[in-house]
């Protein structure tokens, strides 16, 4: 019998998210280690079948499309229902999901229903040779520890952290089948309804896409000081972000929060100003190509992870740095 690994992909209103390809990459790694295993991407959304070929190119052996207008990015419950039916009927060995809003809700609920365990927020996997040998690797204690966990139960269910797995390069020559699911989505329970969606005017480049992020923490001292970061970000073509301390103080919006409970970002440069470098913050920037820190405290943990560091008061360092950048830019 072929072992199936289900990879959860939700493409609801938007294009296929990068997280879908990351989950696929993890599923592929496990399948290849097990040998006789097949990766089935379960693609949820409304009229999203066009993404099926992309999923195949990135590692899926089969794409199961579940199409319905109810399947939006806010509707975990019907997706949970679909996965439960699939799992009961077809007994896959594993289900992998992204560690986001949907994955975070569906994963434990599905595990409970199938009488299995669930591991969330994995940064790695040691697949062994069969489903009962898998060890899931995940950070705990704000990144100060790394745990290896095994799931006891009939099915391996896990979520993978954003940016922990690199999507496989697309191979257009890869073959795979596309199958439409016969599950009646309309008949599935959906207790939670969206009554309103409010969108603020977003300013600047989204953090996930920014090549340069200028980020401020408690050390900025006040909301109005963020104009200096904005000025620098505009000059360098980057985005402004902040630590939890800055977000809680209202200096930056929740959308701009970087870290374990905020955005996980992967810019070319992450400039941390007045940020101590708490593990919960650092876990959001682990994939940054280079981290530059400005901090008065030479013992600040941020310098443990930073590639370039300046020990000093940002009030003096930053204006000089900004002016020098302006000059360098001006001079080409």
């Amino acid at each position, binding site marked *: 019998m072929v072992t199936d690994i289900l990879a959860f992909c939700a493409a609801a209103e938007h294009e296929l998210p990068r997280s879908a390809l990351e989950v696929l990459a993890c599923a592929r790694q496990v399948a290849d280690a097990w040998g006789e295993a097949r990766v089935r991407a379960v693609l949820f959304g409304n009229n999203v079948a066009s993404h099926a070929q992309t999923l195949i190119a990135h590692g899926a052996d089969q794409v199961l499309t579940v199409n319905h207008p109810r399947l939006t990015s806010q509707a975990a419950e019907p997706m949970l229902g679909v996965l439960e039916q699939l799992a009961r009927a077809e007994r896959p060995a594993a289900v992998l999901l992204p560690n986001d809003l949907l994955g975070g809700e569906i994963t434990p*609920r599905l595990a409970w229903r199938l009488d299995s365990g669930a591991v969330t927020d994995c940064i790695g996997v040691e697949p062994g040779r069969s489903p009962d040998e898998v060890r899931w690797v995940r950070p705990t204690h704000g990144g100060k520890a790394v*745990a290896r966990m095994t799931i*006891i139960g009939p099915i391996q269910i896990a979520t993978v952290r954003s940016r922990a797995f690199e999507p496989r390069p697309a191979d257009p020559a890869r073959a795979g089948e596309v199958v439409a699911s016969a599950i009646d989505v309309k008949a599935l329970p959906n207790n939670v309804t*969206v009554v309103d969606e409010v969108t603020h005017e977003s300013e600047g480049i989204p953090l996930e896409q920014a090549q*340069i992020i200028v980020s401020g923490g408690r050390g900025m001292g006040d909301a109005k000081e963020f104009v200096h970061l904005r000025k620098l970000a505009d000059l360098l073509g980057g985005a402004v972000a902040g630590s939890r301390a800055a*977000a809680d103080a209202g200096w930056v919006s*929740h959308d701009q929060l970087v870290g374990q409970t905020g955005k996980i970002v992967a810019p070319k440069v992450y400039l941390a100003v007045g940020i101590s470098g708490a593990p919960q913050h650092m876990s959001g920037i682990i994939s940054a190509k*280079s981290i530059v820190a400005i901090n008065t405290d030479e013992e600040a943990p941020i*310098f443990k992870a930073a590639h370039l560091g300046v020990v000093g008061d940002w009030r003096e360092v930053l204006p*000089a740095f900004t002016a020098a950048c302006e000059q360098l830019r001006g001079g080409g």
Partner: protein
Amino acid sequence: MHIVVCVKQIINPDTPAHLFQLDPQTKKQIRGSQPLVISIFDEIAVEVALQFRDKDKSATVSALSLGETEAGETLHHAQGMGAGPAFLLSDPAFADLDAFGRAHVLAAALRKIGETTPVDLVLCGQQAGDVELGVTGPYLAEALGWPMVALASNIVPASEGRIRFTRPREGGYAVLEAPLPCVATITNDQSNVPRYPSILGIRKAMKTQLPVWAAADLSLDRNLLAPEAARLNLTAIETARRESHCEFIPGQSAKEKGEHLAQRMRELKLI
């Protein structure tokens, strides 16, 4: 409206990395001289419940914790913030449970609390500040058979028998509605920064008798407490290694360092 907030007591999550130690036997963090605190998202969940009660004075906010005797302090903290009744679940039989077992115990306690005052809403933190699994809220929804809303940041009143939540999302927020009773997991945003507990409130709470329930006080299948009931096994845990490769930018003054930083970043083609 009766809201029960599940609050966990954890070792200070801001324990500096050089003081962070694991016990190889128990695979748990060694407390050392670190304080025990209320898990950060649970404190936020208490705040969210209290903000609702600030608007609807008839609401009751209870706090529930599973832990050792010291976890009573965390319940007092919640009461100092303004929570009413508090319940502690403590029994050596609970000590080694995994998240699955803990959820069974919490669910049994919620049923028991509901016998006196029916529970309309259970709030859990997005994730505990130590193990960070984020599974307990969804587990409770399943154990109780209630709907759930994940990662809400605030409660909004709705029509009879229903409840609304705001949920932050990219570039804004969504308002979701669910029937009561239900479970929600709580995340942070600008609207729910926890209030400070009043010292007077904590003192008052310390004077009242805290109900402590053991396994025998709950109607709970004892098999669920057996090691074989576990669904997760922590096979290994180690402290994360971080080597420092930081290149410190030299300079006579902070201003000069700023200039040198720009030059160095240009050399490295970072800007």
